[in-house]
């Protein structure tokens, strides 16, 4: 198991009487892509702001590489907020250099790196433009570059894909993957579960200021497995149904003449092979796969399950 690069322990934060975070623990492993999930208003942004030392937690500790987070650590963190913007009246290049200098880069170094990224993203022509002349997506691209420019070891993206068209979203996604490959650790929060499955190694799910689920994406999916399988075959649907004995449950079926597709659940302690043995004599199997629960379903299921207990607590 890799070393944790960042840990938050028992972090709580309230604004007045409103509790934004309640005893939240997260551990992010070095080099991983960590998804911070949760419904709107769950406390994700509060946590991210605490990691960025924009606000201080009321209690709890934050460790970067095992050491308490200090103000100097901002140099090692890159942050792309959800609500993002740039100085509208400033020229793009000038502004990028300014923001890079805030992160501790020298002017010449900033210029050099900016040239590389501007070429890579084909945005050289924007250098002398004012930000207000750029489209929203263009401005976001500029911000993305600024965020990663100082090559931080920990990158935090809050909803990085909002506002991008599919083409640019793909560019950014590839870039995130590449950064991850180069060794950067990435924390990102999003509502888009398909990107979570695609990008994240592990996740934490926050709901109503509490962490309700965390772990590796694969483990979580395993844990949420329902023993459900999908099978396509050629043959007679009736014969197929008859061949199933009590150990299996047919959930759904579709058939188009002798091309059939079924969704079924394996009950009790029956094995996959038992199922195959049972149906093989009556049909020609074309495909067979396990239905792994999507993060989307897991998300909805977990959040909904959390509700009753939450309401009980409140009463």
């Amino acid at each position, binding site marked *: 198991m890799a070393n944790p690069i960042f840990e938050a322990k028992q972090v709580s934060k309230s604004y*007045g009487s409103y509790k934004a975070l309640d005893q939240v623990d997260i551990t992010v492993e070095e080099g991983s892509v960590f998804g911070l999930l949760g419904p709107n208003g769950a406390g994700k942004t509060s946590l991210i*702001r605490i990691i*960025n*030392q*924009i*606000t*201080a937690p009321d209690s709890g500790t934050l460790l970067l590489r095992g050491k308490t987070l200090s*103000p100097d650590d*901002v140099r090692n*963190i890159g*942050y*792309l*907020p959800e*609500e*993002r*913007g*740039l*100085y*509208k*009246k*400033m020229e793009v290049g000038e502004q990028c250099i*300014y*923001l890079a200098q*805030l*992160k501790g880069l020298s002017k010449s170094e900033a210029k050099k790196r900016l040239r590389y990224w501007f070429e890579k993203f084909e945005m050289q022509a924007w250098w002398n433009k004012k930000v207000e002349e750029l489209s929203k997506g263009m401005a976001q691209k500029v*911000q993305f570059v*600024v*965020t990663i420019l100082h090559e931080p070891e920990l990158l935090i993206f809050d909803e990085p894909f909002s506002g991008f068209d599919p083409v640019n979203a793909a560019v950014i996604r590839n870039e995130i993957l590449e950064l991850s490959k180069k060794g950067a650790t990435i924390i990102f929060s999003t509502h888009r579960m398909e990107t979570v499955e695609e990008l994240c190694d592990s996740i934490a799910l926050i709901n109503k200021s509490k962490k309700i689920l965390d772990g590796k994406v694969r483990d979580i999916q395993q844990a949420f497995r329902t023993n459900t399988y999908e099978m396509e075959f050629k043959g007679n649907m009736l014969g197929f149904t008859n061949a199933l004995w009590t150990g299996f449950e047919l959930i759904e079926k579709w058939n188009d003449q002798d091309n059939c597709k079924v969704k079924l659940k394996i009950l009790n302690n029956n094995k996959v092979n038992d199922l195959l043995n049972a149906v093989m004599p009556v049909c020609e199997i074309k495909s067979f796969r396990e239905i792994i629960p999507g993060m989307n379903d897991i998300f909805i299921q977990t959040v909904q399950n959390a509700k009753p207990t939450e309401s009980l607590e409140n009463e």
Partner: protein
Amino acid sequence: MTRVKKKSFIIMTFLGPLLMASIGILPVWLAKSTESIRKVHVLDETGIAEGQLASNENIVFSYIHSSLSEAKKNLNNSDIYALVHIPSGKDDNLLVVQRNIKLYSNEQVSLNVKIYIENQIEKQIERSLLKSQGVDKELVASIENQVNVTLNTVPLNETPAKDVSYDPELSTALGAIGGILIYFFIFLFGAQVMRGVIEEKTNRIVEVIISSVKPFQLMMGKIVGIALVGLTQFLLWVVLTGGIYTIFMNTVVKEKYSSERIEMLMQNSPDGTSVDNIDELIENQQMIKRIESINWALIIPAFIFYFLGGYLLYGSLFAAIGSAVDNETDTQQFVLPITVPLIFSFVMAQTILNDPTGTVAKWLSIIPLTSPIVMMVRLPFQVAPWELALSMVMLVLGFIFTTWIASKVYRTGILMYGKRVTWKEIAKWLRYS
């Protein structure tokens, strides 16, 4: 940074001194160039003013002897500017006559001309009355020529350095100008701070930046940055205005108001007809001397100090307001209470000018919220060093305090969106650790 590069800044920087200098120079120049010679006809039925009214650079009197209606007709048709009619009274009682003197003109007579003519006629009536009492006309003229009182006020507690003619009129003007400038600078740059903060907040760039620097640093950076912009502008103004003033002095004024020329004029006009002319010259010359004798070495640094102090005090409050609201229209309810002391001291300036060492003035010049303006108003009137020192210390403490308060509000407010902020809410933010 972007502010200094803005066109408006550059334009204002160079236009400012031109405007200021022109406020001083233009009237003189305009008066000289546009005031053509005005012919004034005098129809004197009593004979007291006949041949006696002194013409000056702009007004030339000529005497006519016709009927009033004819003279009026004449006035209508010609380039004559005005007609003075001195009607003969019953017994030529001058005290009655003086009430019936009329000035006819085609257009509205300018105030200068009216006052000048009144003066001249008054003088003649005076002389005539004196003469009727048996006083020699020549004697009167010569006495008048010799008497010319200018009060040189000397502050007692001050060692009479040089021949500093310290005069209340100039101090009043200077105090008022200093106070007004501070007032406008604080408002102008304070509002800029506020707008800057709102801009950063609505742009949403603030979150990126405060992930790199502390909110307090960002706030102070904003305030100090704009202060430097303000100072740059002010210093450029001082330099440019000084430059223009010097050039103006060396070319136009020096020659006209030089002592030699005045002496020469005095010698050349022993008859006393152009006495007023010389008086005016002497007065102007003294004015220039007085301007040069003002303790600029105290006033300019004090101005910079009070500008900076007052600006930092109010600037941080303005920054706090900017952070608390979402857009500029919401600022009204917060800006007003904060600027009340500023407006109050501006209004009080008049009272303080009348009584610059009074209790009210003293207290207001020590309380940090009002001291920047009030002290600038008082400064030309000699302020005790300990008062000045106390006021300065209080101002420094004041701005440290407001900055501390403001930073608390700012830190919370800057990331708060879409919430209608009230005073109560802000008070709550202050209690957050």
